[in-house]
Protein backbone atom coordinates (compact mmCIF):
# COMPACT_ATOMS: atom_id res chain seq x y z
CA UNK A 1 0.00 0.00 0.00
CA UNK A 2 2.78 2.43 0.86
CA UNK A 3 4.27 1.67 -2.55
CA UNK A 4 1.40 3.05 -4.58
CA UNK A 5 1.95 6.65 -3.44
CA UNK A 6 2.67 8.94 -6.36
CA UNK A 7 3.63 12.58 -5.80
CA UNK A 8 2.78 14.62 -8.90
CA UNK A 9 1.84 18.17 -9.88
CA UNK A 10 -1.73 19.16 -9.03
CA UNK A 11 -4.30 19.32 -11.85
CA UNK A 12 -7.85 20.62 -12.20
CA UNK A 13 -9.15 17.08 -11.69
CA UNK A 14 -7.78 17.07 -8.13
CA UNK A 15 -10.34 19.69 -7.10
CA UNK A 16 -12.93 17.25 -5.85
CA UNK A 17 -10.34 15.25 -3.89
CA UNK A 18 -8.81 18.38 -2.33
CA UNK A 19 -12.25 19.68 -1.37
CA UNK A 20 -12.93 16.30 0.25
CA UNK A 21 -9.72 16.36 2.31
CA UNK A 22 -10.39 19.92 3.44
CA UNK A 23 -13.90 18.86 4.43
CA UNK A 24 -12.53 16.03 6.52
CA UNK A 25 -10.07 18.37 8.26
CA UNK A 26 -12.25 21.45 8.74
CA UNK A 27 -15.80 19.95 8.53
CA UNK A 28 -16.62 22.59 5.94
CA UNK A 29 -17.60 22.01 2.32
CA UNK A 30 -15.95 24.83 0.36
CA UNK A 31 -15.76 23.88 -3.32
CA UNK A 32 -15.72 27.50 -4.51
CA UNK A 33 -12.78 28.37 -2.25
CA UNK A 34 -10.74 25.49 -3.68
CA UNK A 35 -11.79 26.26 -7.24
CA UNK A 36 -10.40 29.75 -6.76
CA UNK A 37 -7.17 28.51 -5.22
CA UNK A 38 -6.56 25.68 -7.67
CA UNK A 39 -7.33 28.02 -10.58
CA UNK A 40 -4.82 30.51 -9.16
CA UNK A 41 -1.93 28.08 -8.67
CA UNK A 42 -2.49 26.35 -12.02
CA UNK A 43 -2.34 29.56 -13.97
CA UNK A 44 0.66 30.88 -12.03
CA UNK A 45 2.85 27.79 -12.34
CA UNK A 46 1.24 24.47 -13.12
CA UNK A 47 4.34 22.50 -12.14
CA UNK A 48 4.56 23.92 -8.63
CA UNK A 49 1.73 22.67 -6.39
CA UNK A 50 1.77 18.96 -5.62
CA UNK A 51 -0.63 16.21 -4.67
CA UNK A 52 -0.11 12.77 -3.18
CA UNK A 53 -2.03 10.18 -5.14
CA UNK A 54 -2.66 6.92 -3.29
CA UNK A 55 -4.15 4.17 -5.44
CA UNK A 56 -5.63 6.73 -7.85
CA UNK A 57 -7.18 8.96 -5.16
CA UNK A 58 -5.87 12.27 -3.88
CA UNK A 59 -4.78 11.77 -0.27
CA UNK A 60 -2.81 14.97 0.28
CA UNK A 61 -1.99 18.29 -1.35
CA UNK A 62 0.45 21.14 -0.93
CA UNK A 63 0.08 24.44 -2.76
CA UNK A 64 2.66 27.13 -3.12
CA UNK A 65 4.81 29.08 -5.54
CA UNK A 66 7.94 31.16 -5.89
CA UNK A 67 7.38 34.90 -5.57
CA UNK A 68 9.68 37.85 -4.93
CA UNK A 69 8.96 41.19 -3.35
CA UNK A 70 6.48 40.12 -0.67
CA UNK A 71 6.82 42.18 2.54
CA UNK A 72 9.87 43.85 1.02
CA UNK A 73 11.66 40.48 0.92
CA UNK A 74 13.22 40.87 -2.52
CA UNK A 75 14.87 37.49 -2.91
CA UNK A 76 12.82 34.85 -4.70
CA UNK A 77 11.00 32.98 -1.96
CA UNK A 78 9.17 29.68 -2.15
CA UNK A 79 5.88 30.28 -0.33
CA UNK A 80 4.12 27.24 1.12
CA UNK A 81 0.50 28.30 1.42
CA UNK A 82 -2.08 25.51 1.71
CA UNK A 83 -1.66 21.88 2.59
CA UNK A 84 -3.49 18.96 4.04
CA UNK A 85 -3.23 15.19 4.32
CA UNK A 86 -6.28 12.95 4.65
CA UNK A 87 -6.56 12.04 8.37
CA UNK A 88 -6.82 8.33 7.42
CA UNK A 89 -3.32 8.27 5.96
CA UNK A 90 -1.42 10.61 8.28
CA UNK A 91 1.91 9.55 9.70
CA UNK A 92 2.86 7.74 6.50
CA UNK A 93 5.31 10.35 5.21
CA UNK A 94 2.89 11.85 2.68
CA UNK A 95 3.43 15.30 4.19
CA UNK A 96 7.19 14.86 3.95
CA UNK A 97 7.05 13.65 0.35
CA UNK A 98 4.82 16.56 -0.65
CA UNK A 99 7.08 19.14 0.92
CA UNK A 100 10.18 17.54 -0.61
CA UNK A 101 8.63 17.80 -4.08
CA UNK A 102 7.51 21.38 -3.56
CA UNK A 103 10.90 22.46 -2.19
CA UNK A 104 12.69 20.75 -5.09
CA UNK A 105 10.55 22.77 -7.49
CA UNK A 106 11.27 25.98 -5.56
CA UNK A 107 15.00 25.29 -5.85
CA UNK A 108 14.70 24.62 -9.59
CA UNK A 109 12.94 27.99 -9.91
CA UNK A 110 15.90 29.73 -8.30
CA UNK A 111 14.62 30.18 -4.75
CA UNK A 112 17.10 29.70 -1.92
CA UNK A 113 14.60 30.03 0.87
CA UNK A 114 11.12 28.72 1.61
CA UNK A 115 8.74 30.52 3.93
CA UNK A 116 5.34 29.93 5.46
CA UNK A 117 3.18 31.21 8.32
CA UNK A 118 1.46 29.20 11.03
CA UNK A 119 -1.25 30.28 13.46
CA UNK A 120 -0.05 29.89 17.03
CA UNK A 121 -2.94 27.58 17.85
CA UNK A 122 -2.11 25.20 14.96
CA UNK A 123 0.32 23.13 16.97
CA UNK A 124 -0.01 20.16 14.59
CA UNK A 125 1.13 22.17 11.64
CA UNK A 126 3.92 23.80 13.63
CA UNK A 127 5.06 20.34 14.78
CA UNK A 128 5.12 19.03 11.25
CA UNK A 129 7.03 22.04 9.93
CA UNK A 130 9.54 21.77 12.76
CA UNK A 131 10.08 18.12 11.84
CA UNK A 132 10.66 19.37 8.28
CA UNK A 133 13.45 21.60 9.68
CA UNK A 134 11.62 24.89 9.39
CA UNK A 135 12.81 27.34 12.04
CA UNK A 136 11.28 30.58 13.37
CA UNK A 137 12.06 33.44 10.98
CA UNK A 138 13.51 36.76 12.18
CA UNK A 139 10.21 38.40 11.27
CA UNK A 140 7.28 39.34 13.45
CA UNK A 141 3.74 38.96 12.26
CA UNK A 142 1.76 42.03 13.39
CA UNK A 143 -1.91 42.87 13.14
CA UNK A 144 -4.47 45.48 14.12
CA UNK A 145 -8.22 44.96 14.40
CA UNK A 146 -10.22 47.36 12.28
Amino acid sequence: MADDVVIRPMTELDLEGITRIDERITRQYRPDVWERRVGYYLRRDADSSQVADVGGKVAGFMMGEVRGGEFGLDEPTGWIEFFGVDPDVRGRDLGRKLIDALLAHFRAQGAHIARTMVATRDEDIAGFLKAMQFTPAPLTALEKRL
Partner: protein
Amino acid sequence: MADHQSQLPRQYHEAVMHWQRHNFPDYPKLPEQWDTYFPKDEAFCLCARIQQNMPEHIEVGDRKGQPKAVAPRELDPKAAEELLAIIRAQASTEFGSIQQHQATLARASDPQDQAWVLRVMAEELRHGYQMIHLLTSADWSPVTDTKPQDMVEEILSMKTGSHVLAAFNLEYDSFVDNIVFAAFIDRVGKYQLTMQKVNAYQPMASSMPPMLREEAFHLAAGVIPMRRWAEAAVKSDALITMPVLQKVVNKWFGRGLEMFGDERGGKTNVRLGLKDKTNRVAQDEYIAECDKMLDDINQRYVRARFPRLSRDEADALYARVKADRGAIDGLSWDDDLLKLPHASFFRRRGESAFQMIGFDGGTFTDVDAYIAHVRDHLPEAYVASVDVKHWAELQRGVARGTVPLEKALSSMPRLARVGGACPCANSVRWVVDVEVSPNGGLGGQETRLSP
Protein backbone atom coordinates in the same frame (compact mmCIF):
# COMPACT_ATOMS: atom_id res chain seq x y z
CA MET B 1 12.08 30.74 -15.46
CA ALA B 2 13.89 27.88 -17.14
CA ASP B 3 12.84 28.87 -20.62
CA HIS B 4 14.41 30.96 -23.31
CA GLN B 5 12.09 33.38 -25.15
CA SER B 6 12.44 34.76 -28.64
CA GLN B 7 10.48 36.65 -31.24
CA LEU B 8 10.00 35.43 -34.80
CA PRO B 9 11.76 37.18 -37.68
CA ARG B 10 9.81 40.31 -38.54
CA GLN B 11 7.99 39.04 -41.63
CA TYR B 12 6.52 36.14 -39.68
CA HIS B 13 5.81 38.11 -36.53
CA GLU B 14 3.97 40.68 -38.66
CA ALA B 15 2.08 37.93 -40.49
CA VAL B 16 0.82 36.51 -37.17
CA MET B 17 -0.15 39.99 -35.90
CA HIS B 18 -1.95 40.65 -39.17
CA TRP B 19 -3.78 37.33 -38.84
CA GLN B 20 -4.69 38.30 -35.27
CA ARG B 21 -6.25 41.57 -36.40
CA HIS B 22 -8.59 39.71 -38.71
CA ASN B 23 -9.25 36.54 -36.70
CA PHE B 24 -8.82 37.53 -33.07
CA PRO B 25 -10.02 41.13 -32.77
CA ASP B 26 -10.55 40.80 -29.00
CA TYR B 27 -6.84 40.22 -28.37
CA PRO B 28 -6.18 43.88 -27.38
CA LYS B 29 -8.68 43.45 -24.52
CA LEU B 30 -6.35 41.02 -22.77
CA PRO B 31 -3.87 43.61 -21.43
CA GLU B 32 -6.82 45.80 -20.39
CA GLN B 33 -8.29 43.00 -18.28
CA TRP B 34 -5.07 41.44 -17.08
CA ASP B 35 -4.73 43.23 -13.75
CA THR B 36 -8.36 42.60 -12.87
CA TYR B 37 -8.38 38.86 -13.50
CA PHE B 38 -4.70 37.91 -13.30
CA PRO B 39 -3.20 40.42 -10.87
CA LYS B 40 0.57 40.23 -10.50
CA ASP B 41 0.90 37.50 -13.15
CA GLU B 42 3.81 37.98 -15.51
CA ALA B 43 2.51 39.89 -18.55
CA PHE B 44 1.51 37.83 -21.58
CA CYS B 45 4.30 37.56 -24.16
CA LEU B 46 3.62 36.57 -27.77
CA CYS B 47 6.91 34.76 -28.20
CA ALA B 48 8.47 31.36 -28.73
CA ARG B 49 9.58 29.64 -25.52
CA ILE B 50 12.20 26.92 -25.41
CA GLN B 51 12.68 24.95 -22.22
CA GLN B 52 16.28 24.56 -21.11
CA ASN B 53 17.94 21.42 -19.74
CA MET B 54 15.90 18.84 -21.60
CA PRO B 55 17.18 15.28 -22.29
CA GLU B 56 19.73 15.23 -25.11
CA HIS B 57 19.31 11.61 -26.13
CA ILE B 58 16.43 9.90 -27.90
CA GLU B 59 14.10 8.40 -25.30
CA VAL B 60 12.01 5.88 -27.28
CA GLY B 61 12.02 3.91 -30.51
CA ASP B 62 14.61 2.44 -32.86
CA ARG B 63 17.22 5.13 -32.23
CA LYS B 64 16.83 5.19 -28.46
CA GLY B 65 20.03 6.39 -26.77
CA GLN B 66 21.37 8.27 -29.79
CA PRO B 67 21.70 12.06 -29.63
CA LYS B 68 18.51 13.96 -30.46
CA ALA B 69 18.40 15.89 -33.71
CA VAL B 70 18.91 19.64 -33.54
CA ALA B 71 18.25 20.10 -37.26
CA PRO B 72 15.68 18.31 -39.46
CA ARG B 73 18.38 16.79 -41.68
CA GLU B 74 19.73 14.85 -38.67
CA LEU B 75 16.42 13.02 -38.30
CA ASP B 76 15.58 9.73 -39.95
CA PRO B 77 13.96 10.97 -43.23
CA LYS B 78 10.69 9.24 -42.44
CA ALA B 79 10.68 10.77 -38.94
CA ALA B 80 11.34 14.22 -40.39
CA GLU B 81 8.40 13.84 -42.76
CA GLU B 82 6.04 12.65 -39.99
CA LEU B 83 7.24 15.41 -37.68
CA LEU B 84 6.60 18.08 -40.27
CA ALA B 85 3.03 16.80 -40.67
CA ILE B 86 2.60 16.84 -36.85
CA ILE B 87 3.84 20.43 -36.58
CA ARG B 88 1.55 21.62 -39.37
CA ALA B 89 -1.44 19.83 -37.84
CA GLN B 90 -0.59 21.22 -34.38
CA ALA B 91 -0.32 24.74 -35.80
CA SER B 92 -3.67 24.32 -37.52
CA THR B 93 -5.33 23.38 -34.21
CA GLU B 94 -3.87 26.36 -32.36
CA PHE B 95 -5.01 28.96 -34.89
CA GLY B 96 -8.23 27.05 -35.57
CA SER B 97 -9.37 27.08 -31.94
CA ILE B 98 -8.97 30.87 -31.78
CA GLN B 99 -11.28 31.25 -34.78
CA GLN B 100 -13.84 29.03 -33.05
CA HIS B 101 -13.57 30.74 -29.64
CA GLN B 102 -13.76 34.24 -31.10
CA ALA B 103 -17.17 33.66 -32.67
CA THR B 104 -18.97 33.19 -29.33
CA LEU B 105 -16.59 34.82 -26.83
CA ALA B 106 -18.84 37.89 -26.52
CA ARG B 107 -21.78 35.71 -25.46
CA ALA B 108 -20.24 34.66 -22.14
CA SER B 109 -22.61 35.31 -19.25
CA ASP B 110 -19.86 35.68 -16.66
CA PRO B 111 -17.00 38.15 -17.03
CA GLN B 112 -14.46 35.92 -15.31
CA ASP B 113 -15.24 32.94 -17.54
CA GLN B 114 -14.85 35.26 -20.49
CA ALA B 115 -11.52 36.67 -19.30
CA TRP B 116 -10.21 33.15 -18.75
CA VAL B 117 -11.18 32.10 -22.28
CA LEU B 118 -9.61 35.29 -23.64
CA ARG B 119 -6.35 34.31 -21.97
CA VAL B 120 -6.67 30.77 -23.31
CA MET B 121 -7.05 32.21 -26.83
CA ALA B 122 -3.95 34.40 -26.45
CA GLU B 123 -1.99 31.37 -25.27
CA GLU B 124 -3.25 29.38 -28.27
CA LEU B 125 -1.92 32.21 -30.43
CA ARG B 126 1.42 31.75 -28.69
CA HIS B 127 1.26 28.00 -29.37
CA GLY B 128 0.63 28.65 -33.06
CA TYR B 129 3.52 31.13 -32.96
CA GLN B 130 5.67 28.41 -31.41
CA MET B 131 4.87 26.03 -34.26
CA ILE B 132 5.73 28.73 -36.82
CA HIS B 133 8.99 29.17 -34.95
CA LEU B 134 9.71 25.46 -35.44
CA LEU B 135 8.90 25.71 -39.16
CA THR B 136 10.92 28.85 -39.82
CA SER B 137 13.92 28.49 -37.53
CA ALA B 138 15.31 25.39 -39.25
CA ASP B 139 16.03 24.17 -42.73
CA TRP B 140 13.25 21.77 -43.75
CA SER B 141 14.41 21.58 -47.39
CA PRO B 142 15.59 17.95 -47.02
CA VAL B 143 11.98 17.07 -46.15
CA THR B 144 9.81 19.31 -48.31
CA ASP B 145 9.98 21.48 -51.40
CA THR B 146 7.57 23.94 -49.82
CA LYS B 147 9.33 27.12 -48.70
CA PRO B 148 8.87 28.21 -45.07
CA GLN B 149 6.94 31.32 -46.20
CA ASP B 150 4.51 29.09 -48.03
CA MET B 151 4.09 26.70 -45.10
CA VAL B 152 3.23 29.66 -42.87
CA GLU B 153 0.95 31.08 -45.53
CA GLU B 154 -0.89 27.78 -45.77
CA ILE B 155 -1.43 27.63 -41.98
CA LEU B 156 -2.64 31.21 -41.69
CA SER B 157 -5.02 30.75 -44.62
CA MET B 158 -7.05 28.02 -42.94
CA LYS B 159 -10.54 28.84 -41.75
CA THR B 160 -13.12 26.94 -39.72
CA GLY B 161 -13.96 24.28 -42.31
CA SER B 162 -10.53 23.84 -43.87
CA HIS B 163 -8.42 22.80 -40.87
CA VAL B 164 -6.63 19.48 -40.67
CA LEU B 165 -8.76 17.93 -37.88
CA ALA B 166 -12.54 17.82 -37.69
CA ALA B 167 -12.68 19.17 -34.12
CA PHE B 168 -11.41 22.51 -35.43
CA ASN B 169 -13.90 22.67 -38.28
CA LEU B 170 -17.00 22.79 -36.08
CA GLU B 171 -18.47 26.13 -35.26
CA TYR B 172 -19.45 26.99 -31.71
CA ASP B 173 -23.16 27.45 -31.10
CA SER B 174 -22.89 29.25 -27.76
CA PHE B 175 -20.42 30.05 -24.99
CA VAL B 176 -21.10 26.58 -23.55
CA ASP B 177 -19.02 25.33 -26.48
CA ASN B 178 -16.07 27.54 -25.47
CA ILE B 179 -16.05 25.90 -22.04
CA VAL B 180 -16.77 22.29 -22.97
CA PHE B 181 -14.20 22.54 -25.77
CA ALA B 182 -11.54 23.66 -23.26
CA ALA B 183 -12.42 20.75 -20.96
CA PHE B 184 -12.47 18.07 -23.68
CA ILE B 185 -10.49 19.20 -26.71
CA ASP B 186 -7.69 21.03 -24.91
CA ARG B 187 -7.37 17.84 -22.88
CA VAL B 188 -6.46 15.95 -26.06
CA GLY B 189 -3.94 18.72 -26.68
CA LYS B 190 -2.44 18.02 -23.28
CA TYR B 191 -2.04 14.35 -24.21
CA GLN B 192 -0.39 15.14 -27.53
CA LEU B 193 2.01 17.64 -25.98
CA THR B 194 2.86 15.24 -23.16
CA MET B 195 3.62 12.43 -25.61
CA GLN B 196 5.79 14.80 -27.65
CA LYS B 197 7.96 15.75 -24.68
CA VAL B 198 10.15 12.80 -25.71
CA ASN B 199 10.33 13.95 -29.35
CA ALA B 200 13.58 13.01 -31.11
CA TYR B 201 13.76 16.52 -32.56
CA GLN B 202 15.16 18.56 -29.69
CA PRO B 203 13.49 21.90 -30.55
CA MET B 204 10.11 20.15 -30.65
CA ALA B 205 10.64 18.40 -27.31
CA SER B 206 11.83 21.66 -25.74
CA SER B 207 8.74 23.48 -27.00
CA MET B 208 6.45 21.21 -25.00
CA PRO B 209 6.94 22.07 -21.28
CA PRO B 210 6.06 25.79 -21.60
CA MET B 211 3.00 24.88 -23.70
CA LEU B 212 1.95 22.24 -21.17
CA ARG B 213 2.11 24.73 -18.28
CA GLU B 214 -0.32 26.92 -20.21
CA GLU B 215 -2.48 23.95 -21.15
CA ALA B 216 -3.01 23.14 -17.45
CA PHE B 217 -4.79 26.47 -17.09
CA HIS B 218 -6.85 25.85 -20.26
CA LEU B 219 -8.22 22.67 -18.69
CA ALA B 220 -9.07 24.57 -15.50
CA ALA B 221 -10.77 27.23 -17.64
CA GLY B 222 -13.01 24.45 -18.93
CA VAL B 223 -13.60 22.33 -15.85
CA ILE B 224 -14.12 25.06 -13.24
CA PRO B 225 -17.00 26.79 -15.07
CA MET B 226 -18.54 23.37 -15.81
CA ARG B 227 -18.42 22.59 -12.08
CA ARG B 228 -20.09 25.89 -11.24
CA TRP B 229 -22.76 25.36 -13.89
CA ALA B 230 -23.46 21.90 -12.48
CA GLU B 231 -23.96 23.39 -9.02
CA ALA B 232 -26.26 26.10 -10.42
CA ALA B 233 -28.17 23.49 -12.44
CA VAL B 234 -29.93 22.13 -9.33
CA LYS B 235 -32.11 25.24 -9.19
CA SER B 236 -35.45 24.94 -10.93
CA ASP B 237 -34.83 28.16 -12.88
CA ALA B 238 -31.29 27.25 -13.98
CA LEU B 239 -30.40 28.56 -17.43
CA ILE B 240 -27.62 26.11 -18.26
CA THR B 241 -29.07 22.74 -17.31
CA MET B 242 -27.44 19.32 -17.11
CA PRO B 243 -29.21 18.11 -20.30
CA VAL B 244 -27.87 21.17 -22.14
CA LEU B 245 -24.34 20.39 -20.96
CA GLN B 246 -24.79 16.73 -21.86
CA LYS B 247 -25.63 17.53 -25.46
CA VAL B 248 -22.58 19.74 -25.82
CA VAL B 249 -20.41 16.96 -24.35
CA ASN B 250 -21.90 14.63 -26.99
CA LYS B 251 -20.97 17.08 -29.73
CA TRP B 252 -17.28 17.16 -28.82
CA PHE B 253 -16.30 13.85 -27.25
CA GLY B 254 -16.10 11.81 -30.47
CA ARG B 255 -14.16 14.54 -32.24
CA GLY B 256 -11.71 14.54 -29.32
CA LEU B 257 -11.26 10.76 -29.60
CA GLU B 258 -10.56 11.14 -33.31
CA MET B 259 -7.74 13.60 -32.64
CA PHE B 260 -5.68 10.65 -31.36
CA GLY B 261 -5.72 9.15 -34.86
CA ASP B 262 -6.96 5.69 -35.79
CA GLU B 263 -7.05 3.39 -32.74
CA ARG B 264 -4.91 0.84 -34.57
CA GLY B 265 -2.15 3.33 -35.40
CA GLY B 266 0.64 5.28 -33.77
CA LYS B 267 3.28 2.55 -33.66
CA THR B 268 5.33 4.25 -36.36
CA ASN B 269 5.55 7.48 -34.38
CA VAL B 270 6.79 5.56 -31.34
CA ARG B 271 9.32 3.64 -33.41
CA LEU B 272 10.53 6.90 -34.93
CA GLY B 273 10.98 8.42 -31.47
CA LEU B 274 8.36 11.14 -31.98
CA LYS B 275 5.86 10.12 -29.26
CA ASP B 276 5.96 7.69 -26.36
CA LYS B 277 2.48 6.15 -26.69
CA THR B 278 0.43 4.57 -29.42
CA ASN B 279 -2.94 6.04 -30.33
CA ARG B 280 -5.05 3.46 -28.52
CA VAL B 281 -3.05 3.59 -25.29
CA ALA B 282 -3.28 7.38 -25.15
CA GLN B 283 -6.95 7.37 -26.13
CA ASP B 284 -7.83 4.87 -23.38
CA GLU B 285 -6.13 7.05 -20.78
CA TYR B 286 -7.99 10.06 -22.12
CA ILE B 287 -11.33 8.26 -21.84
CA ALA B 288 -10.62 7.33 -18.23
CA GLU B 289 -9.67 10.92 -17.47
CA CYS B 290 -12.87 12.29 -19.06
CA ASP B 291 -14.88 9.81 -17.02
CA LYS B 292 -13.21 11.07 -13.85
CA MET B 293 -13.91 14.66 -14.90
CA LEU B 294 -17.61 13.95 -15.29
CA ASP B 295 -17.67 12.12 -11.92
CA ASP B 296 -16.24 15.22 -10.24
CA ILE B 297 -18.75 17.51 -11.93
CA ASN B 298 -21.61 15.16 -11.04
CA GLN B 299 -20.51 15.02 -7.42
CA ARG B 300 -20.58 18.81 -7.30
CA TYR B 301 -24.17 18.59 -8.58
CA VAL B 302 -25.17 15.90 -6.07
CA ARG B 303 -23.80 17.89 -3.12
CA ALA B 304 -25.76 20.96 -4.18
CA ARG B 305 -28.92 18.96 -4.75
CA PHE B 306 -28.72 17.10 -1.40
CA PRO B 307 -27.13 19.63 0.98
CA ARG B 308 -28.18 17.62 4.03
CA LEU B 309 -26.19 14.56 3.06
CA SER B 310 -22.71 14.21 4.47
CA ARG B 311 -19.82 13.88 2.04
CA ASP B 312 -19.72 10.11 2.50
CA GLU B 313 -23.48 9.73 2.08
CA ALA B 314 -23.47 11.85 -1.08
CA ASP B 315 -20.54 9.90 -2.52
CA ALA B 316 -22.34 6.62 -1.78
CA LEU B 317 -25.57 7.85 -3.38
CA TYR B 318 -23.72 8.90 -6.52
CA ALA B 319 -21.82 5.62 -6.71
CA ARG B 320 -25.05 3.61 -6.48
CA VAL B 321 -26.88 5.66 -9.10
CA LYS B 322 -23.91 5.39 -11.45
CA ALA B 323 -23.47 1.64 -10.91
CA ASP B 324 -27.18 0.88 -11.54
CA ARG B 325 -27.64 3.59 -14.16
CA GLY B 326 -30.84 4.07 -12.19
CA ALA B 327 -32.70 6.59 -10.07
CA ILE B 328 -32.62 6.93 -6.27
CA ASP B 329 -34.39 9.63 -4.22
CA GLY B 330 -35.23 11.46 -7.40
CA LEU B 331 -31.63 11.50 -8.62
CA SER B 332 -31.69 10.01 -12.08
CA TRP B 333 -28.69 8.81 -14.07
CA ASP B 334 -30.50 9.44 -17.32
CA ASP B 335 -31.96 12.86 -16.60
CA ASP B 336 -29.75 14.60 -14.04
CA LEU B 337 -26.15 13.52 -14.44
CA LEU B 338 -23.44 13.89 -17.07
CA LYS B 339 -22.41 10.74 -18.88
CA LEU B 340 -19.61 9.96 -21.27
CA PRO B 341 -21.01 8.72 -24.59
CA HIS B 342 -19.82 5.28 -25.70
CA ALA B 343 -16.48 5.67 -27.48
CA SER B 344 -18.02 4.38 -30.73
CA PHE B 345 -20.99 6.77 -30.66
CA PHE B 346 -21.26 9.21 -33.60
CA ARG B 347 -17.80 8.41 -34.98
CA ARG B 348 -16.50 9.45 -38.37
CA ARG B 349 -12.88 8.34 -38.17
CA GLY B 350 -11.07 5.37 -36.68
CA GLU B 351 -11.98 1.81 -35.91
CA SER B 352 -15.67 2.39 -35.28
CA ALA B 353 -16.33 5.07 -37.91
CA PHE B 354 -19.89 4.91 -39.29
CA GLN B 355 -20.64 1.72 -37.34
CA MET B 356 -24.00 2.95 -36.01
CA ILE B 357 -23.21 2.52 -32.33
CA GLY B 358 -25.59 4.31 -29.99
CA PHE B 359 -24.92 6.57 -27.03
CA ASP B 360 -24.98 3.59 -24.63
CA GLY B 361 -23.02 1.26 -26.91
CA GLY B 362 -25.96 -0.55 -28.50
CA THR B 363 -25.82 -1.35 -32.23
CA PHE B 364 -28.37 0.02 -34.68
CA THR B 365 -29.32 -1.75 -37.90
CA ASP B 366 -31.73 0.82 -39.28
CA VAL B 367 -29.88 3.90 -40.51
CA ASP B 368 -32.84 6.26 -40.21
CA ALA B 369 -33.35 5.21 -36.60
CA TYR B 370 -29.65 5.75 -35.94
CA ILE B 371 -29.64 9.23 -37.44
CA ALA B 372 -32.68 10.15 -35.35
CA HIS B 373 -30.95 8.74 -32.25
CA VAL B 374 -27.81 10.80 -32.85
CA ARG B 375 -29.90 13.88 -33.61
CA ASP B 376 -31.73 13.55 -30.30
CA HIS B 377 -28.41 13.51 -28.43
CA LEU B 378 -26.93 16.62 -30.06
CA PRO B 379 -27.53 20.34 -29.40
CA GLU B 380 -30.31 21.75 -31.59
CA ALA B 381 -28.21 24.49 -33.14
CA TYR B 382 -25.54 21.98 -34.07
CA VAL B 383 -28.05 19.55 -35.58
CA ALA B 384 -29.05 22.31 -37.98
CA SER B 385 -25.46 22.69 -39.21
CA VAL B 386 -23.93 21.59 -42.48
CA ASP B 387 -21.56 19.40 -40.47
CA VAL B 388 -24.33 17.17 -39.14
CA LYS B 389 -26.14 17.16 -42.47
CA HIS B 390 -22.97 16.04 -44.21
CA TRP B 391 -22.42 13.31 -41.63
CA ALA B 392 -26.00 12.04 -41.98
CA GLU B 393 -25.63 11.81 -45.75
CA LEU B 394 -22.40 9.87 -45.44
CA GLN B 395 -23.83 7.64 -42.73
CA ARG B 396 -26.79 6.84 -44.95
CA GLY B 397 -24.53 6.19 -47.94
CA VAL B 398 -22.21 3.89 -45.97
CA ALA B 399 -25.14 1.96 -44.48
CA ARG B 400 -26.74 1.49 -47.90
CA GLY B 401 -23.49 0.62 -49.63
CA THR B 402 -23.57 3.61 -51.97
CA VAL B 403 -20.57 5.37 -50.34
CA PRO B 404 -17.41 3.31 -49.81
CA LEU B 405 -16.16 3.53 -46.21
CA GLU B 406 -12.74 4.84 -47.31
CA LYS B 407 -14.40 7.68 -49.12
CA ALA B 408 -16.54 8.55 -46.10
CA LEU B 409 -13.47 8.48 -43.83
CA SER B 410 -11.71 11.15 -45.83
CA SER B 411 -14.71 13.33 -46.57
CA MET B 412 -15.03 16.72 -44.90
CA PRO B 413 -18.00 19.04 -45.20
CA ARG B 414 -17.28 22.12 -47.23
CA LEU B 415 -18.28 25.20 -45.32
CA ALA B 416 -19.09 28.28 -47.31
CA ARG B 417 -15.96 30.07 -46.12
CA VAL B 418 -13.02 27.98 -47.10
CA GLY B 419 -9.44 29.05 -46.91
CA GLY B 420 -8.31 32.35 -48.14
CA ALA B 421 -5.68 34.91 -48.25
CA CYS B 422 -5.77 38.02 -46.15
CA PRO B 423 -9.03 39.89 -46.74
CA CYS B 424 -7.34 43.31 -46.82
CA ALA B 425 -7.75 44.96 -50.20
CA ASN B 426 -4.13 45.92 -50.47
CA SER B 427 -2.58 42.59 -49.72
CA VAL B 428 -3.05 39.05 -50.91
CA ARG B 429 -0.75 37.18 -48.57
CA TRP B 430 -0.40 37.00 -44.79
CA VAL B 431 3.37 36.66 -45.07
CA VAL B 432 4.78 39.64 -46.91
CA ASP B 433 8.43 40.32 -47.52
CA VAL B 434 10.01 43.01 -45.41
CA GLU B 435 13.12 44.94 -46.38
CA VAL B 436 16.34 43.02 -46.03
CA SER B 437 17.96 44.28 -42.86
CA PRO B 438 21.66 45.04 -43.03
CA ASN B 439 22.63 42.18 -40.72
CA GLY B 440 19.98 39.64 -41.52
CA GLY B 441 18.58 37.64 -44.38
CA LEU B 442 15.10 37.92 -45.75
CA GLY B 443 12.82 38.91 -42.91
CA GLY B 444 15.72 39.26 -40.52
CA GLN B 445 16.74 37.19 -37.54
CA GLU B 446 14.87 36.04 -34.50
CA THR B 447 15.08 38.49 -31.66
CA ARG B 448 16.24 36.97 -28.45
CA LEU B 449 14.11 38.32 -25.60
CA SER B 450 15.48 36.46 -22.62
CA PRO B 451 17.14 35.31 -20.51
